[in-house]
């Protein structure tokens, strides 16, 4: 088969089209894999990952994020590259991708390659092209930096396995939180086909780890694990549904990361909601906060949300929200509480909790000490005692605490959001007022 490329198109034009087509993919991390250079080519990887630049939307640029081709046989409603769209199409050749990656990498522009693709002819054909490209990069160019590739759902398991041995991280996009939502949005994709490669990659990683324990030189399979992403705000699914899916993915599929992508209506499809107030960034932010609570703070989704309260409170973050609804636990004595309980206090994170545990071996701690350790006292002071005393006389009362936490917010001091909320006004309503707790339409009143 001949790849449909217009031969006169320059690399510049192709890169423009194919980077533009790939920008809605969220994942750009280069972490999780630690490899030294072996002296035969360029590249190594750093466990914590490196960001080499930041784009005008504040997102990091770590990898050369491109599609191999934006030609696609599928017709997913939310996707800019769907076949019914009339957009300029382009395809790279494996050599072009290799050369771009190597030259960008030498100049320290990027940390590696992120290769995704539209479906050209068939999933197998596309996956084979991706494999060929990465294989060339690894063997001919001896590239030892970070490579993230997409597993194309529906591709042959052998091809996915081959890609897994070449890449540091693989991902399959779940796209929508519910199977029904996926059917509605992407008529050509099926939940089953997405979960199958995900399971295969998970098994591959486990197997590779076991082999490495026995043989030091056994090949690595997706050393940096796998990730996925979901679109948020295109369908009326609740935060509870989204977070439950994420929790399942972490527990049952051992994913490294689940990404949430605030819906941008690129196609102006009439079936999809018009997001007039811009993409639901605050909702996305709350989901990420909850995601961190799941992964590092030992929270369960059922503690944060229930079927009666299926959405996060937009006014305060999920952790503070949990705390004000569980005031029976507080105040917590800093000098006695165990690590798990310390983590539940708003204003105390993983680092400061660890420092508290280490430091209180040498003597009891005061509020002054906590401040030095990086505890955010203006948030924590309602929930803690040091040596049996609270910092100021405060009421342990839900409304009182919420008012104080959000009062600072109105002054532009409290919670720091990574984006501006222009003309934000918090309505003076009770916390559990439904209007606060969104739905894409109500949401506009806040953002």
């Amino acid at each position, binding site marked *: 088969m001949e790849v449909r490329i217009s031969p006169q198109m320059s690399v510049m034009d192709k890169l*423009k089209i194919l980077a533009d087509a790939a920008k809605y993919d969220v994942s750009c991390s280069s972490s999780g894999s630690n490899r030294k250079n072996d002296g035969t080519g*360029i590249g190594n990887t750093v466990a914590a990952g490196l960001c080499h630049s930041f784009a005008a939307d504040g*997102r990091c640029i770590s990898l050369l994020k491109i599609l191999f081709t934006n030609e696609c046989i599928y017709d997913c409603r939310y996707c800019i590259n769907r076949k019914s769209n009339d957009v300029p199409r382009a395809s790279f050749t494996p050599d072009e991708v290799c050369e771009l990656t190597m030259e960008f990498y030498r100049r320290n*522009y990027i940390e590696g390659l992120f290769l995704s693709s539209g479906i050209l002819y068939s999933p197998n054909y596309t996956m084979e092209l991706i494999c060929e490209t990465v294989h060339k990069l690894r063997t001919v160019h001896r590239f030892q930096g970070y490579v993230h590739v997409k597993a194309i759902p529906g591709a042959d398991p052998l091809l996915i396995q081959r890609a897994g041995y070449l890449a540091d991280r693989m991902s399959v996009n779940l796209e929508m939180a519910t199977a029904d939502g996926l059917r509605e949005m992407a008529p050509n994709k099926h939940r089953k086909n997405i979960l199958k490669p995900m399971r295969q990659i998970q098994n591959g990683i486990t197997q590779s780890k076991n082999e490495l324990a026995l043989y030091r030189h056994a090949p690595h399979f997706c050393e940096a694990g796998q990730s996925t992403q979901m679109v948020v705000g295109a369908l009326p699914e609740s935060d509870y549904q989204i977070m439950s899916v994420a929790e399942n993915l972490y527990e049952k599929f051992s994913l490294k990361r689940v990404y949430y992508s605030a819906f941008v209506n690129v196609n102006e499809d009439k079936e999809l909601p018009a997001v007039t107030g811009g993409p639901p960034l605050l909702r996305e932010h709350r989901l990420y906060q909850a995601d961190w609570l799941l992964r590092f703070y030992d929270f369960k989704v059922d503690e944060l949300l229930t079927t009666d309260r299926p959405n996060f409170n937009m006014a305060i973050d999920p952790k503070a929200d949990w705390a004000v609804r569980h005031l029976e636990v507080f105040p917590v004595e800093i000098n006695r509480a165990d690590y798990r309980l310390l983590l539940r206090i708003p204003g105390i994170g993983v680092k400061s909790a660890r420092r508290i545990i280490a430091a209180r071996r040498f003597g009891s701690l005061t509020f002054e000490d906590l401040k030095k350790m990086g505890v955010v006292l203006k948030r924590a002071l309602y929930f803690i005692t040091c040596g049996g005393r609270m910092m100021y006389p405060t009421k342990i009362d839900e409304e009182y605490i919420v008012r104080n936490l959000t009062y600072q917010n109105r002054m532009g001091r409290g919670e720091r959001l990574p984006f501006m909320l222009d003309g934000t006004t918090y309505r003076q309503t009770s916390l559990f007022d439904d209007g606060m707790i969104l739905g894409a339409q109500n949401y506009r009143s806040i953002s």
Partner: protein
Amino acid sequence: MEEKYIICEDSLEGIFTAVYDAYALREGHEHIHIQVGEEDNYRLFATYMYSHPDSVKTDKVIGTLKSRLGEEVYAAICRAAASCDKSKGEAIYRTVVEGITAGSGRRTMENLRNPYVVRTFELARRTANEVHHEVEFIRFQELQQGILYALIGPENNVVPFVMPHFADRLATENFMIHDEKHGMYGIHPAHKEWYLVSEAEQLPKDRVQWSQKEQQYQELFTMFHKTIAIRERRNIRLQCQMLPLRFQDYMVEFNKN
């Protein structure tokens, strides 16, 4: 007793020699201070001494620090010594006294009750953060002979800490990193050990000529950088928070021309 100020050169060797000299005075540590660089406000009731960098004394100090305080504390002190802050001499001297004479040993950097240890800790952290930023944001340009050249202007003297990362990553490349603020070159010949050169043996600026393809790749990356941003999520404030403006001056994708 009269206060004594030891004035030393602004370098690792200078500071360590001054520390050696301070100990060699055998007058206790209370009234001795180390001053990096020339004093611009001389005190009336104090004596000033000059200490000249001496490699033998420096090696002795390094040996003692490594064996008595451990590699980690030693590394933190080195990072603090690379700082641009003039208070580093005194902070390092007092930290060494805390570690060796007061006997905090390997746990010296944990003793955050001592204000000088806190200062050393802060200076070391600031250098480490800048090293991390430079590792991320350095931009190499290809010169005509295929040599990679990067120009940086960091606050602290980060080149010695940045070089090991790139020496591993770009093992097969000839590259150099030029710190124009401190007049320092880090040079790495392919497959060989890297080394530092000071600006005295400077490479004239007009000799820097790009290779044929350099311009093209700079344009490609600038375009990629512009294209990858999602218009609906535009957030320049966040961008500046993550990538401070002082780094942007040296990065091709922010080049206004």
